[in-house]
């Protein structure tokens, strides 16, 4: 155990390990608290859909030779988040079909654009690291870390301030509207926050694995806890814990960061499921 601790201390001296842990914790925190709302609104797959849109945004940014692809990617993702989340019950194309269309479309067109207007030397590498995260979390620049910290603080602050309204709108949108709450506005805010989180989270686990970060902690928490507040808090705590564990395991064992975090999340879910069954009693 002391050898383990010594090694840990030694690894913490690497700046990129510290950055990875900070950013990893923040992203895990943000995605899990919004995850509860998304799962309950039956929009679980939105993480995946929006991350493919973000990929499309990044492709366009790189084709247009932008030095920093974040602003365009964010803009793209926010727009689509708003379109997808606010189409509501009256959309001609319902939630899941809309997400599927936008998601696959962005992925295909993004990849096509990158291929046709090949501006980077290693195309498959770029695509692969965007999709799977690869070691992007371990190669962050200080600017990216500050940006992430800033955006995370913003997300958490907004969530806490709007917590009661988000709950009301998630549980019963009609009732909220009928009693004078501007439900559309809060859905709009939720859409923007999710887009921001997804663009950030692509760095941690890559496009393909983002959904896991959003839904697993929320689902795990729902196995055990009974009130919305405790579900949200536990989801956040669990997500942060799994993310830390996942990054540390990847750093120690040389495994890919994204997949490792998701693997830890899955194990946590299984444990929570078992605990819920044993202690849960009647459902």
């Amino acid at each position: 155990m002391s050898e383990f601790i010594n090694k840990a201390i030694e690894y913490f001296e690497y700046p990129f390990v510290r950055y990875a842990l900070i950013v990893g914790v923040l992203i895990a925190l943000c995605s899990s608290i919004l995850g509860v709302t998304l799962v309950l609104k039956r929009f679980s797959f939105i993480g995946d859909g929006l991350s493919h849109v973000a990929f499309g945004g990044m492709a366009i940014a790189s084709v247009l030779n932008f030095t920093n692809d974040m602003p365009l990617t964010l803009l793209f993702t926010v727009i689509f988040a708003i379109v997808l989340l606010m189409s509501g019950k009256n959309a001609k194309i319902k939630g899941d079909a809309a997400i599927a269309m936008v998601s696959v479309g962005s992925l295909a067109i993004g990849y096509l654009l990158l291929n046709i207007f090949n501006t980077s030397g290693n195309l498959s590498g770029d695509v692969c690291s965007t999709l799977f995260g690869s070691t992007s979390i371990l190669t962050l620049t200080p600017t990216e870390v500050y940006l992430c910290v800033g955006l995370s603080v913003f997300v958490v602050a907004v969530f806490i301030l709007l917590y009661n309204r988000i709950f009301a709108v998630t549980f019963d949108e009609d009732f909220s509207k009928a009693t004078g709450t501007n439900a559309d506005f809060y859905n709009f805010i939720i859409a923007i926050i999710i887009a921001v989180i997804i663009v950030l989270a692509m760095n941690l686990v890559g496009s393909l694995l983002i959904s896991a970060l959003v839904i697993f902690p929320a689902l795990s928490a729902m196995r055990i806890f009974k009130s919305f507040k405790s579900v949200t808090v536990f989801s956040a705590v669990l997500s942060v814990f799994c993310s830390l564990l996942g990054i540390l395991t990847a750093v120690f064992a040389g495994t890919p960061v994204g997949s490792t975090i998701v693997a830890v999340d899955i194990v946590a879910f299984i444990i929570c499921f078992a605990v819920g069954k044993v202690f849960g009693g009647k459902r």
Partner: protein
Amino acid sequence: MKKIISLLLVMAFAFSLCACGKSKETADKKVSTDNNISSEKSADSIDYDISALNTTMAYSQVIEMCQNYQKYLNKTVKITGIFACDITDSRNYYACQIKDNTACCSAGLEFVLKDEKVYPDEYPNVGDTITVMGVFNQYTEGTNRYFELRDATIIE
């Protein structure tokens, strides 16, 4: 009370998985004969021993060195990776490359050997795993900045 027990169980189980992670680490693929686990200074006064790190760490470290190169200039670096070379009309470029876990990206450092050697006879085969030690340096060619290990020696 039930909730606290559940929380503790979850954490305990997860911590026990930590121990599993530790044993995985010892099965690291290390070809280097130098079993230098603790880095920083050693007998050969290596400043940064990347060869002792696993793929994830090594790859990240190389990227970081190129991002914050001022910190690493003129430091002695030891790196293990795959030998690659690029033959052009003006000069040959030799490099030691590290692939990341998903094997789709690689980061590497060029090296220039201290003693003049003839390619291909006195160089390793392309694709061989080699360990190189040299002094971290940067140079510009046109508008691009490149990084290399100069005064390098191939250890194994």
